[in-house]
């Protein structure tokens, strides 16, 4: 600071400013405010989340009050206004905006004039206050989510509950003067564990065997046995794998502007289901998905499995019509950073692409350290190049010896040669046409007769089609076995920080590839020269002392079993997320997952469903409700609506239409690469995108184009990391039950089933088959009333079917107590 301004800051006493007429604000609005917004607010406004040098420029008061160096603007005195001095770059240590060319002379003279005129400023009101968000490393390391889990002894509770988890819950309840609910009935509990663990209702045999086991060994033992059995059923992986697919933003098309299908995405889906069924430890699961290609494999089948795992990085939404290759690659890396940081750590690092994170201690350097890792990775998406797809890109070839299925037609070596010939003919043809068009143009004739836009498009199309066919087979005409995924690039590199995230604005210095600085782990893996760093990123994430990874997955599991996470914002543990309702319990479970369960999710799930807390009744209790209406303290088990897949699967299950085998690939895998906008015209794709009786996890998942049942019942938005699905209630759902062919077909099967059973009492028989229990006397009455009411309808012969359809449509069918 020079002497002149020092004297000024010490002695200046602001003069009262005459209130300015509204017309004066015009100048401010046109000339001043836009510059402030554009050039200053990022570091000096409440919205920008920063007050560098203690200075806020977003109110008149803030300007006059100034920052650490004193007032920024002195109305009427441009020469005494530090703001102007800084903008004019008068002092080398105070040049604003920083690290940029000085703002134009016009702007400077506008500011001078404005200050000279008394700095009329309509932005009245008190200067705002910055949030206390922990955006720097020091305060960040004190924020709960970045503090490593602390071991906590389960509290003493008398009388002792079944498990240590219950002790934590009981303690909080007791402190609030609340108590747990009594246990749910065995039938309710059975239905609950079947849906929660496998996504399917218990069938008649399941119910009978359970009853026998309870009679023989008691409820506790019977329950334990059943939980173990359910965890070993393949349907467990189909249910819990789907939970992960929500987090992995899995879909079978690119989404965005030109929505191309991903015919090989299903392999990753099956990998996830198998991984859950095999109970691959969660730390290993993380590493496989991020860096399976970099892990050793003894057998071809294991090599194939690990390559397919990296499909995690490739199934995200991408802009296939992006013409700028570099931009495309930067966007893919950005998407991978977003998916992996939010999915594994529940923090939003991708915010730091353009500016330091406004609420969490994540800097742009952190972002570009991670971006270097993914920019050094080649993502294999594999879609057909066409006029609306600039990208394409080949898939990863899987070892043939792994014996995996493929759907591509085998052909002959001759046919391959012929295709290649066709392609070169087409290219020659095009070149000739262009030459003729050029000649016509020179001779002043209309060139479009020789070569028109339509012909150009047609050409791209035809060549694209041949390329597409050639990609599916090898030289011998044998079908290729391929998957989506990621491999390291040969040109591994660090990236600079790009100002405002713009590729045209690289900073001078490169940021070494690495991980967010706020999480500092002893013995953190080091990325060496020739590697992308994906493996080290995965190892860093699964480091036993990592403060987030274990907590986040424990919380996800808790959410699916108790309907609400201990941290309700399952995908945001940062400052803007919520704080845990039971922090000690969360830490206890996270440490236990790592140290006792060896990252086994099955063990964690088993532990949680055997708690008294999970086994509680979900009945309403007014006194507790008034105290804790949101049930944050778990005074009862929360009710939930079944999710989309469960609703469809339950209808298939009770009507015995369910084909519980795994279908080969998926509809998208079997019908090949195409633009999803055209799926309605494909003869091999049914209009409701369903048409199968396999479990719903195997339904096609096209971005922006879902099978009806998924779209209607709140399926995850597959372009976002989704740890929690909303539950909505709309008339379209009712219309689906009333009028869709799918529900009608199930009702038809149910009616046949009941008739075959030779039942006298149709009302009860249908109730038992559809809802798994006999009707109460009142329910029987309304059922009988229905049959009387439809006695005179023209479609009376359908009445049993229509009765079953109504039972499938009841709220109890799709809700869980």
């Amino acid at each position, binding site marked *: 600071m020079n002497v002149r301004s020092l004297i000024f800051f010490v002695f200046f006493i602001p003069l009262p400013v005459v209130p300015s007429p509204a017309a004066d604000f015009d100048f401010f609005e046109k000339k001043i405010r836009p510059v402030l917004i554009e050039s200053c607010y990022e570091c000096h406004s409440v919205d920008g989340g920063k007050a560098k040098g203690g200075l806020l420029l977003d109110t008149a008061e803030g300007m006059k009050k100034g920052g650490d160096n004193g007032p920024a603007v002195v109305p009427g005195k441009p020469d005494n206004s530090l703001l102007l001095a800084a903008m004019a770059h008068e002092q080398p240590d105070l040049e604003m905006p920083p690290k940029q060319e000085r703002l134009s002379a016009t702007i400077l003279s506008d500011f001078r004039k404005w200050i000279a005129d008394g700095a009329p400023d309509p932005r009245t009101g008190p200067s705002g206050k910055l949030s206390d968000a922990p955006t720097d490393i020091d305060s960040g390391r004190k924020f709960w989510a970045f503090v490593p889990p602390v071991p906590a002894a389960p509290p003493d509770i008398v009388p002792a509950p079944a498990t240590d988890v219950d002790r934590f819950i009981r303690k909080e309840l007791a402190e609030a003067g609340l108590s747990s609910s009594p246990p749910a009935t065995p039938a309710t509990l059975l239905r609950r564990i079947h849906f929660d663990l496998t996504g399917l209702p218990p069938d008649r045999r399941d119910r009978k065997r359970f009853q026998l086991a309870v009679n023989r060994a008691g409820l506790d033992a019977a329950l334990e046995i059943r939980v173990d059995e359910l965890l070993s059923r393949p349907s467990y992986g189909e249910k819990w794998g789907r939970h992960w697919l929500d987090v992995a933003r899995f879909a079978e098309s690119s989404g*965005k*502007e*030109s*929505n191309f299908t991903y015919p090989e995405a299903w392999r990753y889906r099956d990998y996830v289901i198998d991984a859950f069924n095999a109970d691959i430890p969660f730390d290993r699961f993380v590493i496989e998905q991020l860096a399976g290609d970099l892990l050793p494999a003894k057998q071809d089948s294991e090599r194939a499995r690990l390559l397919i795992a990296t499909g995690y990085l490739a199934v995200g*939404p991408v802009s296939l*019509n992006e013409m700028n290759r570099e931009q495309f690659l930067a966007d893919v890396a950005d998407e991978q950073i977003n998916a992996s940081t939010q999915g594994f750590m529940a923090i*939003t690092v991708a915010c730091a692409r353009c500016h330091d994170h406004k609420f969490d201690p994540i800097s742009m350097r952190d972002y570009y350290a991670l971006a270097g890792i993914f920019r050094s990775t080649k993502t294999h998406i594999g879609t057909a190049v066409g*006029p*609306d797809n600039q990208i394409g890109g080949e898939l990863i070839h899987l070892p043939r010896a792994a014996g995996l299925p493929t759907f591509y037609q085998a052909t002959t070596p001759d046919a391959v040669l012929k295709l290649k010939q066709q392609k070169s003919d087409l290219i020659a043809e095009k070149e000739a046409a262009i030459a003729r068009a050029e000649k016509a143009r020179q001779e002043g004739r209309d060139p479009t007769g020789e070569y028109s*836009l339509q012909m150009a*498009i047609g050409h791209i199309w035809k060549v694209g089609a041949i390329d597409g066919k050639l990609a599916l087979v090898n030289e011998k005409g044998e079908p290729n076995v391929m998957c989506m995924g990621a491999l390291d690039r040969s040109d591994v590199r660090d990236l600079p920080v790009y100002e405002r995230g713009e590729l045209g604005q690289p900073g001078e210095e490169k940021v070494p590839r690495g991980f967010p600085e706020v999480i500092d782990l002893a013995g953190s893996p080091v990325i060496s020269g020739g590697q992308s760093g994906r493996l080290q990123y995965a190892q860093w994430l699964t480091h036993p002392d990592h403060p987030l990874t274990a907590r986040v997955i424990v919380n996800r599991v808790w959410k699916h079993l108790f309907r609400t996470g201990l941290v309700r*914002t399952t995908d945001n543990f940062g400052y*803007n*997320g919520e704080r845990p309702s039971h922090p000690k319990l969360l830490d206890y479970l996270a440490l236990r997952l790592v140290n006792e369960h060896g990252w086994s999710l099955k063990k964690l799930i088993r532990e949680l469903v055997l708690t008294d807390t999970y086994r509680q009744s979900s*009945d*309403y209790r*007014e006194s507790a*409700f008034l105290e804790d*209406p949101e049930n944050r303290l778990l005074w009862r088990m929360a009710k939930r*609506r079944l999710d989309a897949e469960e609703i469809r699967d339950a209808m298939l299950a009770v009507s015995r239409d369910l084909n519980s085998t795994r279908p080969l690939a998926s509809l998208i895998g079997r019908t090949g690469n195409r*633009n999803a*906008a*055209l799926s*309605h*015209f494909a003869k091999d794709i049914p209009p409701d995108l369903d048409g199968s009786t396999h479990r719903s996890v195997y339904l096609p998942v096209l971005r*922006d*184009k879902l099978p*009806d049942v998924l779209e*209607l019942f709140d399926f995850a*938005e597959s372009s976002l990391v989704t740890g929690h699905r*909303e*539950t*909505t*209630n*709309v*008339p*379209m*759902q*009712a*219309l689906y039950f*009333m*009028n*869709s062919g799918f529900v009608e077909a199930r009702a038809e099967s149910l009616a046949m089933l009941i008739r075959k059973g030779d039942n006298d009492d149709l009302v009860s028989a249908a109730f038992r088959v559809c809802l798994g229990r006999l009707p*109460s006397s009142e*329910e029987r009455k*309304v*059922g009988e009333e*229905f049959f009387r*009411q*439809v006695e005179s*309808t023209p*479609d009376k012969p359908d*009445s049993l079917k*229509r*009765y079953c*359809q*109504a039972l499938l449509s*009841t*709220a109890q069918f799709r*809700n869980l107590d």
Partner: protein
Amino acid sequence: MTPNHLSKPQSRRAVLKSLSSGFGYLAFAGLSTFEAFGKARSSSSVRAPHFPARAKRVIFLCMKGGPSHVDTFDYKPELQKRNGEAWRGSAAKLLASSQEFRQHGESGLRISSLFPRLAADHADDLCLINSMHTDLPNHPQAYAQLHTGSFQFVRPSLGAWSLYGLGSVNSNLPGFVTLNPPSDMGGANNYGSAFLPAAYQGAKIGGGQLPAIFSALSGKTEEPGPPMKNISNDRISQQMQRAQIDLITSLDRKQLARDIYHPEIEGAIESFELAYRMQDEIPDVLDLNREPDSIRKLYGTDRQGDSGRFARQCLLARRFAEAGVRFIEVTAPTSWDHHSLLNDNLQNCGAVTDQPVAALLTDLKNRGLLQDTLVIWTGEFGRTPYAQGLGDGRDHNNKGFSLWMAGGGVRGGYRHGSTDDFGYKAIENPVHIHDLHATILHLLGLDHERLTYNYAGRDFRLTDIYGNVVKDIIA
């Protein structure tokens, strides 16, 4: 506007009492206190706006492809004079408009000869904004930004936000419908609800429009299928279905009596009744034969090809508006993406859209609906003042374009902002898409800064951190 949380035990108790009386839901459906009980709220209740609304509903006429503003609503005498001159030292040449821009109405707004009916009948109803701009000159991104405010992320659409803010007036109909939206350009995202509850997403009426390139090759313009999924069922008699609804409702009520408090079941009871009524109402609204000949003629619904299709869309829009739908989007069946053969293409687009649009405004006015219906005519961006290709087309231009609004509290016969002498860039009072969104919400009585939804721990807005209401255009 975040859901109200109950603060006093008394009110909770009062609500509960009422709920357990059996008629609870119906009695409380309109009260926002009910929302606090769960996310399972329905879209079918009216909610109070933040301040008095000027418009109660929106008809959004989407001119996809990017209409050339310098040939439609932005008269540029300088451009006319300097036809063929080099554009700012580049190889591109300025291209004067072939359209005539006469002044119309008392306001003297200049409207090109492409829209004779609109100009003659409605010049004084139009509020032109000549200073629009958007971030990118690519169709899909600009289209997404126009519809959701963002081209980077999947975000709720303008219609979904509007419905979220205001609720629906007619519970027998969806509150937000979109007629023949394009199946590309981001597809369902343009009328989706993203992280807002699904109740706020647009209901697609009619098949999606195919990408131009595919329809050129296949000769088909729309996806096949019924106008709306699951809306009718000819395999069941009405009596049978009524008996089913009675059975379902009765079983659900018994369940509710056992559970006492269960928003999901309350909602289910309501939605089956709604759905049952919707089955009658939607086909009624869709049935244009219920309109007198004079109205059908006014719109031109019997004309051939795109003209007739667009006329039917516009008439349907009015019928939905009248029936109480909050937000109606109509995507014109023509593409305004005129990279070549500019004049032929413009003539065609004008011929297809002029009469139906003019008829829509006339019809709304005659019914007294225009005053609280905000009609918006816009594309995703404009076009360059210079030629491209063989010299008979214009390229995309995001830096400056025009749109108009009418009715719903905007100043008629008014022109806001301007582009430079050639129509290249918005210079005076520029209006960004975020500003447009803020203004539309404002006209609906919603403060764009207060209309928020908490998702993943953050309060989201349609306008993100941007947007200023364009006060000058409000009547």
